[in-house]
């Protein structure tokens, strides 16, 4: 199988890019793929914390780019999930420490050894985003059902299309079914209607995510929570499996958007 480089991005900050990167990477690894997650957020790194590896960093992506170490010396192996690796970035540097060409070179180097390379992208549309996206073939866009998040995702999708990334697929994160039902929150169909790209997953608002991110114990490894199932399903769909989106409520009307809206089997 040719290895795939996937950037996880959103435009807006705080919508769950890092959590998604970590958990989808772990789920892909649990399926038997060799996976490396790259922290593309130079200067504001967090992937190491979410993946529980912050005390194991010796070298970083920047050290490897600057020649202070070999690339494989900077990559950390996860002790709990077999086949899962993480490439941390530097906390003491800024986005200017990397160029898009260097990121392309790093991704191409990693393609030799890994099935999946997931790049956790920083918020924004400036150099950090351009670097993180440079080496990727395809993209996962994370959006929450909020107007500001959807607008930023729309901007990012336009940029990703211009950069010829394909496919570009959507993850709707932090869905609160009760609020959607009350009409206080955009539904998945509303988000899809605006963004007009393929949906690859929906993640419910789940307290387990916060506990997991703080403890550095990945959801996919630790629990059968709804969010954990959602991440595993996303990973399976990334790998090309046809996983149904929904526990269809047969009493509901059968419109496709309505069905998507009402499925919370994720």
């Amino acid at each position, binding site marked *: 199988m040719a290895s795939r480089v996937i950037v996880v991005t959103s435009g807006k900050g705080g919508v769950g890019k890092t959590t998604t990167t970590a958990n989808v990477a772990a789920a892909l690894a649990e399926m038997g793929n060799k996976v490396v997650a790259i922290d593309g957020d130079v200067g504001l790194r967090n992937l190491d914390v979410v993946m529980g590896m912050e005390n194991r960093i010796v070298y970083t992506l920047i050290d490897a780019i600057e020649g202070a170490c070999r690339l494989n010396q900077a990559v950390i192996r996860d002790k709990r999930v077999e086949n899962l690796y993480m490439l941390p970035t530097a906390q003491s540097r800024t986005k200017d420490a990397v160029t898009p060409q260097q990121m392309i070179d790093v991704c191409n180097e990693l393609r030799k050894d890994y099935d999946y390379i997931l790049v956790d992208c920083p918020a924004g549309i400036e150099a950090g985003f351009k670097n993180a996206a440079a080496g990727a073939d395809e993209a996962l866009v994370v959006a929450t059902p909020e107007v500001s998040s*959807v*607008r930023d995702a729309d*901007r990012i999708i*336009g940029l990703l*299309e*211009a950069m010829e990334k394909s496919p570009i697929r959507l993850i709707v994160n932090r869905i609160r079914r009760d609020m959607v039902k009350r009409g206080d929150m955009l539904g998945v169909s509303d988000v899809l209607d605006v963004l007009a790209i393929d949906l690859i997953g929906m993640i419910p608002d789940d307290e387990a995510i916060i506990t997991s991110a703080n403890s550095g114990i990945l959801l996919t490894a630790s629990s059968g929570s709804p969010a954990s199932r959602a991440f595993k399903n996303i990973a399976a769909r990334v790998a090309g499996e046809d996983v149904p989106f929904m526990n269809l409520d047969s009493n509901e009307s059968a419109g496709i958007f309505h069905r998507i809206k009402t499925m919370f089997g994720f």
Partner: protein
Amino acid sequence: MIKLKGMADSVLRCIISEELPASGFGEALRAVMEKGKQILPGARVVLDFGARALPEPLIASILSGFVWPSGICVVAWITYDAASQEILKRGGLSISEPLPESPVVGRNTASLVLHRSLRSGQRVEHRGDVIIVGHVNSGAEVLASGNITIIGRLKGLAHAGYEGDENSSVVVRSMEAPQVRIGGKIGSLEREANWWARNVIVSVRDERVLIEYWPPLKNEAGEEIARERPIYR
């Protein structure tokens, strides 16, 4: 991936597909040069890149690899990427469709019809009327010196008559934009307004921006309701 089409006033339109990867540009343009070597030298050409972003190195390579060797005269560089439009403008390159040589009676402009949606950050600027068969998402911009018709949702900014023509109008299938501009006037609309998410026509009358249902809504007695109301200013 690259098509040449004839337009009015013997202008050629060179449409470069958005699906063509940037790495394939050089080869595809050379093929166009080869095929069109009889017609290209001296031809007036509009280069249409759709929503593709044009970073400086790509523009430079198109100039040196296609424009100059083929002998064409580029009359406009069309892209909906707002950042690229700025780059082209800074280089003194025209980003508007060419004006017709024989003016249409009443308005010296041509229409632009787009079968696509515009995403946040994308912009269309056109001297003439613009018809969009698609949505204009929040954060996208449409500027026309004439009228604007959007057969879809308007969530972004529409500015009709941006060169000052306040006889222009904006017609929208689903009005979901908090602001519409016509000439030098700005109309703003509350989300709670009756017109929100309805099909409307926005125009200027008596120095005020007006919005009305289109087609007019009627009540049970068959009378038109709320045919026109000022939005604001």
